[in-house]
């Protein structure tokens, strides 16, 4: 049985804000995005065959917080729908598989999160071992700082290399109107800043961001009807590493490397990486084997806006845009989940038919 080809045909992202005027159910952020992306494709919500979303109850502090987001769709008559308690990049994986079964020929994937509602860095401590680590409440910046120093002291990277990542991101962020931050700067200026969590400086860390994003997928002929240049998904893979943080080699990302092999990343011109900390950009580039010719996170990446549970999906959307606009032939979008790059996903997209 032939498996249908699947492509990204649409993408929309909400402004990356430190604190959005919005409820934790995402409705206010999602309603305009659905309208924008469906209008652009001359579709209505009734044309969508499958819906899949990613979000987290813990950001809202409530059980079943994702249920109210359904209101933003107008899900009457009922919809074919599913939800992952992960970044919506994994919802995209679920939707991609669904399209490949042939059951539906379009899917809309969305992610949302209002990180500003709580104390995000503290909340994320609840992702750690609930018996031996979480009761101490080490926050997410702490975990990243421990990883950063491991790499610095084993010669895997330098503070200057980290600052160069941040400077590149901030300069790129200035060109992205939806980014939370961005300005002209260089590594020297950033290295002069004080540390936030030694050895991390504030610019090494993604800001706390409220946001949402939407990607529309379509299969085979349907994709060609909707878009002149669909971004065909030619490879997609995700992997997890151990849940025991201290048993992993935190200076490498074996899961990303495995994804890279499985998805076939050779020859990408653009790579949008979901690296919430500057040193993680270095870890990911190495795991993906990206050379200097590859444009890395031209959107500014997660360092210029990291809306939890949609930032990974947004990376895929931003990467896809380069193909949809005819600016690149082969691109990749990457997403991460969990502490210190525990889970990673790579989606490779190409133009042409």
């Amino acid at each position: 049985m032939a498996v249908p080809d699947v492509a990204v045909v649409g993408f929309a992202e909400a402004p990356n804000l430190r604190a959005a005027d919005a409820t934790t159910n995402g409705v206010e952020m999602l309603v305009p995005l659905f309208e924008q992306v469906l209008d652009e494709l001359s579709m209505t919500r009734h044309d969508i065959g499958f819906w899949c979303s990613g979000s987290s109850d813990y950001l809202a502090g409530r059980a079943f917080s994702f249920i109210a987001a359904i209101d933003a769709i107008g899900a009457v008559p009922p919809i074919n729908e599913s939800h992952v308690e992960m970044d919506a990049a994994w919802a995209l994986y679920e939707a991609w598989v669904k399209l490949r079964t042939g059951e539906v020929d379009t899917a809309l994937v969305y992610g949302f999160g209002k990180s500003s509602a709580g104390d995000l860095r503290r909340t994320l401590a609840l992702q750690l071992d609930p018996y031996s680590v979480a009761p101490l409440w080490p926050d997410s910046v702490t975990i990243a700082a421990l990883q950063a120093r491991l790499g610095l002291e084993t010669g895997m990277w330098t503070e200057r290399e980290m600052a160069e990542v941040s400077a590149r991101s901030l300069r790129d962020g200035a060109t992205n109107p939806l980014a939370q931050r961005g300005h002209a700067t260089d590594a020297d200026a950033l290295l002069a800043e004080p540390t936030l969590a030694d050895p991390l400086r504030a610019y090494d860390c993604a800001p706390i961001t409220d946001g949402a994003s939407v990607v529309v997928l379509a299969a085979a002929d349907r994709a060609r009807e909707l878009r002149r240049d669909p971004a065909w998904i030619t490879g997609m893979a995700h992997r997890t590493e151990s849940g025991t943080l201290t048993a992993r080699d935190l200076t490498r990302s074996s899961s990303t490397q495995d994804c890279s092999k499985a998805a076939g990343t050779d020859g990408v011109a653009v790579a949008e990486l979901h690296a919430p900390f500057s040193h993680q950009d270095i870890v990911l580039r190495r795991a993906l084997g990206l050379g200097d010719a590859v444009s890395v996170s031209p959107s500014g990446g997660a360092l210029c806006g990291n809306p939890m549970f949609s930032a990974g999906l947004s990376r895929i959307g931003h990467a896809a845009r380069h193909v949809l606009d005819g600016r690149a032939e082969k691109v990749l979008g990457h997403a991460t989940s969990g502490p210190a790059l525990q889970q990673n996903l790579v989606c490779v997209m190409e133009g042409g038919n």
Partner: protein
Amino acid sequence: MAGQLVAVLGSGQTHHASKRTDVSIAGLCREAVDRALADADLDFADVDAVVLGKAPDLFEGVMMPELHLADALGANGKPLMRVHTAGSVGGSTANVAASLVQGGAHRRVLAVAFEKQSESNAMWALSIAPPFTMPVGAGAGGYFAPHVRAYIRRSGAPDHIGAVVAAKDRRNGALNPYAHLRENDVSVDSVLETQMLWDPIRFAETCPSSDGACAVVLGDEATADRAARRPAWVHATAMRTEPTTFSGRDHVNPQAGQAAARALWSQAGITDPMSEVDVAEIYVPFSWFEPMWLENLGFAEPDSGWKVTEAGDTALDGRLPVNPSGGVLSSNPIGASGMLRFAEAAMQVSGRAGDHQVDGARTALGHAYGGGSQYFSMWLVGSDKPGGTR
């Protein structure tokens, strides 16, 4: 059915209890996983991807517990996904795992679902009232009781129908070695004598609060063809969602459940579910939901599901045995409850249901619902490979 063929190769579940104080969360999951792998005659090395489902993270106070559980699930170096669709999640998790095979992404997938309710208190977690809201909520029972009342009024059902279901499911549970409640001396009268908790729902008509886990191993056609034991072929899967509330919503017979059932029967080529399905594991956390879902699923005409129940047709020896395992009324580890329905359906058609086996079962329904009766997930499994070859 869309995509490539997929079959259940094996399933496993824990002994369910109100407090499994002998195991951690990981240990609980692993108990089900080890049984499922043994049942499928496979080990971790044979598994290509893992899907974990559970209900709200607030129940255990662990954010995205699949991250911590990766080692216990044998997921390291593999794809690991986490599904959450409220109370239907156990079923949705199995369906997502099935789609990974149907879509050609993976050949053998382990799906796991759990809830360790004793780590906190579900009534608390489900009744958290944020600012500005009226704190009238009273857990799941308080939510569903008004809709049960509406059903009773609308259908004209006699008051004792709920008790008929409760007595049947509890006695069935006594035949299931893994069930939380194993009460073979329950009668309609004894149910009717118990306290009204959320009038019109009596104590004995409510599900228990359980710790438990369930796992199923799914495989592609080639793997299933080589399996030593008879697999359960997946003939159809369906998931449908509607908003929790909207003007004109039918809370008793929700559109989403009807739509999911129509999709399921159509995919499987079933035109008369009552005569073509041999056994059904239906998500019945409060006894009255048996007649309500019989109607919603198309086994009975609207307002007449209670007649099917009253006639004894849903008993173990009836026309359509419903919940021979004892169902949610006998064990309710919320996140796993849906998968238990799906796994029990598979056990029936592969002849592995032990003392609660329905003789000659060849086609079985697994059903789950969640949220405010707004998330529905179901699958239909059979002894025969779809397309008719045995």
